[in-house]
């Protein structure tokens, strides 16, 4: 087919070109814009328009319990800032983000360093390690809840046997433990993300750097700090940036494991806004809150993405 098309084109080309006028010529000239148009229109319609619309919503009364859309000024923002749950949810979000991303980074780095070496069965282990990336966070939350729940989950039973005395921890309901449960689920799911990116970075480091270091009698520990870390830095930055930007959105696991409880203790920002907006239907308050949330993370995003781009350019 390819060859017949080639000859047909060569023969038919001049005629086709002369015939091309009017609509098809216009299309050909503006092809580059026609190709990007569907994507841009979709993004404008379903992301940018809602964002602008939400500015209006944030300044009026848009509450399913109160009729009318009166202009209320900054009242919606004031309500969010005055809400102690909103403030604690920011703290909880920061806590989870920092804890999750640092543990995922350390575990991911450890795995990547261990897996750079070739050994028997490496391919199989590699395939197993990336499995969590293809599972819905809802399911991850669900089966961690299954593993940790009281009284039928196996975790307390195993801990009781290991420690030699009866352990009755309410992993899903008691305060420090439910934080650990959520962190476990998030780390379980996203450590492979960091691992995969860092492994790609490690395998790209030219081996002759290590050979030269070995000849110079440099210890493995020194080689790690003077070769591996600086060479890996762009990848570390990339992996951590991606993870941070996703970690602040944490919602699904909270939804499945604690439902924000006990009370509002494990409300993260996303979960808080969901509750306010879609369970209590204070849409304006939730919208104002989402703008505050966006402003808070925009600062972090700007700084990180700029660092990232700079690192990529100097690479």
């Amino acid at each position: 087919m390819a060859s017949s098309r080639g000859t047909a084109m060569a023969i038919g080309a001049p005629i086709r070109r002369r015939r091309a006028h009017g609509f098809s010529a216009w299309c050909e000239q503006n092809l580059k814009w026609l190709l990007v148009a569907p994507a841009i229109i979709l993004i404008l319609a379903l992301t940018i328009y809602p964002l602008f619309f939400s500015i209006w919503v944030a300044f009026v009364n848009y509450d399913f319990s109160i009729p009318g859309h009166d202009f209320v000024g900054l009242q919606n923002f004031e309500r969010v800032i005055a809400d102690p749950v909103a403030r604690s949810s920011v703290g909880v979000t920061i806590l989870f983000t920092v804890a999750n991303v640092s543990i995922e980074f350390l575990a991911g780095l450890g795995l990547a360093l261990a897996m750079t070496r070739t050994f028997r069965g490496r391919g199989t282990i590699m395939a197993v390690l990336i499995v969590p990336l293809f599972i819905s966070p809802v399911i991850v939350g669900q089966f961690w809840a299954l593993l940790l729940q009281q009284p039928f989950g196996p975790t307390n039973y195993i801990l009781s046997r290991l420690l030699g005395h009866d352990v009755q921890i309410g992993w899903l309901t008691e305060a420090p433990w439910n934080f650990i449960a959520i962190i476990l689920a998030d780390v379980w799911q996203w450590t492979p993300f960091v691992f995969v990116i860092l492994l790609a970075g490690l395998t790209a480091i030219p081996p002759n750097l290590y050979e030269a270091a070995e000849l110079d009698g440099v210890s493995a520990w020194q080689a790690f700090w003077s070769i591996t870390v600086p060479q890996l830095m762009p990848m570390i930055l990339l992996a951590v940036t991606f993870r941070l930007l996703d970690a602040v959105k944490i919602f699904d696991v909270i939804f499945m494991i604690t439902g924000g409880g006990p009370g509002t203790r494990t409300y993260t920002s996303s979960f808080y806004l969901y509750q306010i907006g879609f369970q209590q239907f204070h849409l304006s308050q939730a919208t104002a809150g989402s703008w505050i949330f966006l402003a808070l993370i925009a600062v972090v995003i700007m700084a990180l993405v700029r660092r990232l781009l700079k690192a990529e350019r100097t690479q």
Partner: protein
Amino acid sequence: MSEPLRQRRRARRRRAPIGSYIFVGLYLIFLLTPLYWMAITSIKPTDDYMAIPPVWFPSHPTLAHFTGALFTYRGLQGLWNSLIISSATTVLSALIGTMMAYSLARFRTGGEHLAFWVLSQRFLPPVAIILPLFLLYRFLHLNDTYIGLILAYTVFTLPLSVWMMYAYFRQMPASMEEAALVDGCSRWQALWQVAVPLAAPGIVAAAVFVFISCWTEFFFAVILSSRNAFTLPTVFRGFLGFQGSQYGESSALSVVSLVPSIVLGMLVQRHLVRGLTLGAVRG
């Protein structure tokens, strides 16, 4: 690289400290335990998963929870909805994304700014746009419809498909398309008859990542769908708050849901780094 050098390199790599084996081993236990427990719970009779001490392997495995999850809890409907919504999104996102990526890579449309504008959409928290989107959908009667979720998912996966394909087209030489242009092809024909077939492996990989993103997505689905267009992950809501009586069904449904996405994931394992970093890292 000379032969002795390569051998030395291999020798260096083979000397793995015992500590790294232990670490990987422990990590595998951490990784596989929840999966095992979920799989085993899905075939346990109800008495077995409400037992202390826990039953590690059921003596009378049953498939009752699978039929329960699929028929009593509308898992089958969720599965079907997920399949339709994810497939339609995949086609739409891969098509529109490839078109945009081609334009960005070959004609430098909009310079770097347009490309980064699309990328920035990836980092916009869904919670910031879901409220106004919900109101827009209410106005357009798109809440709880296939079309509504398909459009939302297409937008939400565009950064992925555009950037994966952008990276792919940039490393693909333009010489074949140029030859086609010299032969008298229009640019439009050069795109569909030369560039797209050449980029097919990249498009398939991007499409699979789009499919997996939709298949596992929860946040948009839980808000934009309820009785009709609910996807598989939202079915799990129905198992919350029953204190143990539905563990078998929820585990069975988990198995049903994660098998297809894991199988697909394994098929694109080679492209994983590009998929995770939106083409920023070649892998």
